[in-house]
């Protein structure tokens, strides 16, 4: 009987786990949807911004801007590592962290990190990479958060603390696939001097427009990467949770089978005891 009760208890707890994993999957799915629609809206903005930048750059021989100019010596790299806010999303964070370590070792230059996301503070300490600052980014990032982060990075670059700034994140291929990658943010590389000169009037002048457009371009690049990384995190969590929910179903099936076996054998024992008792009484008569 003790065994029966134990199995019962076990089934109850697995059922609870199934409930939790299922609801976590739903939450991740709804966050994924929100992030994806924001990513779509951002794409519209990015397209128009790039078109205007191309117009400003076309026909210009010399474009001077501190954000475009590479530093003379490239000694220090700043990696912006965009991790998830939580665990329970499969190998998403671990893969990215390992990628970051390899990147830092193979590059060989001095480097420091700006970390976005709450996950894995202790694990980061263990890697020996120096973390300059940590930035909180919500589960569905807003443009304002991205602007703040971009302003910080711009500062780091212009003050000469870093000669190159790279974004390290999980590129979103599909719900089932995210690939770690790194992308240069600063200095901004633009194709210049292309085209036969613009037919546009520039008000007030080319340089101040370039300044404004680069600012928006920078903000928006950071914003789009944040959204992409978060979309990856949510879909990784969704997949992991849906696998976990499937596993609990299997486990419940197995446990139910075991429970039935135990009950059956308990009944068999009881019957044989009764039969044995009756036979003993008959013999005694």
């Amino acid at each position, binding site marked *: 009987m003790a065994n029966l009760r134990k199995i019962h208890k076990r089934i109850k707890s697995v059922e609870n786990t199934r409930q939790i994993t299922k609801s976590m999957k739903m939450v991740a799915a709804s966050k994924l949807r929100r992030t994806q629609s*924001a990513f779509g*809206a*951002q794409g*519209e*903005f990015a397209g*128009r*911004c790039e*078109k*205007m930048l191309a*117009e*400003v750059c076309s026909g210009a021989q010399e474009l001077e801007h501190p954000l475009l100019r590479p530093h003379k010596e490239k000694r220090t790299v700043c990696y912006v590592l965009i991790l998830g806010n939580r665990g329970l999303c499969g190998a998403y964070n671990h893969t990215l962290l390992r990628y970051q370590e390899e990147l830092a070792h193979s590059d060989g230059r001095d480097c420091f990190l700006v970390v976005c996301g709450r996950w894995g503070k202790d694990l980061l300490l263990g890697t020996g990479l120096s973390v300059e600052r940590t930035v909180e980014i919500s589960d569905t990032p*807003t*443009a304002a958060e*991205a*602007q703040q982060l971009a302003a910080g990075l711009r500062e780091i670059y212009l003050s000469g603390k870093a000669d190159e700034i790279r974004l390290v994140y999980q590129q979103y291929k599909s719900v089932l696939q995210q690939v770690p990658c790194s992308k240069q943010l600063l200095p901004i590389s633009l194709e210049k001097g292309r085209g036969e000169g*613009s*037919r*546009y*009037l*520039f*008000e*007030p002048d080319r340089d*101040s*427009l370039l300044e*404004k*457009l680069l600012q*928006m371009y920078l*903000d*928006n690049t950071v*914003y789009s990467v944040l959204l992409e990384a978060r979309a990856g995190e949510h879909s990784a969590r969704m997949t992991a949770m849906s696998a976990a929910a499937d596993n609990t179903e299997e486990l419940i099936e197995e446990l139910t089978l075991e429970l039935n076996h135990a009950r059956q054998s308990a009944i068999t024992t009881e019957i044989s005891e009764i039969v044995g008792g009756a036979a003993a009484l008959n013999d005694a008569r």
Partner: protein
Amino acid sequence: MKSVFRLSVVTAEETVFDEQVSYVNLPTPFGSVGILARHAPMLCAVEKGVLRCTLENGETARVLVGGGVASVADNECTVLVANGKISEE
């Protein structure tokens, strides 16, 4: 040919305004700039302020905008701004 053109105000998060208008008044660092249909192609800096425009039916709409850049070309005016909101007043 009617003298209207398309005005869209876009932020990174959403398209705030997208309609046919006959006149736009943009806040810029060097004062306000008025734009009518078939304006010459122009890129123009936009300051924080109120963008006013006249709709096809003659009504006036106002959009609060943050700093950004406007582009006018091919009878279309696109305003990219850091933030924007349609003013109800």
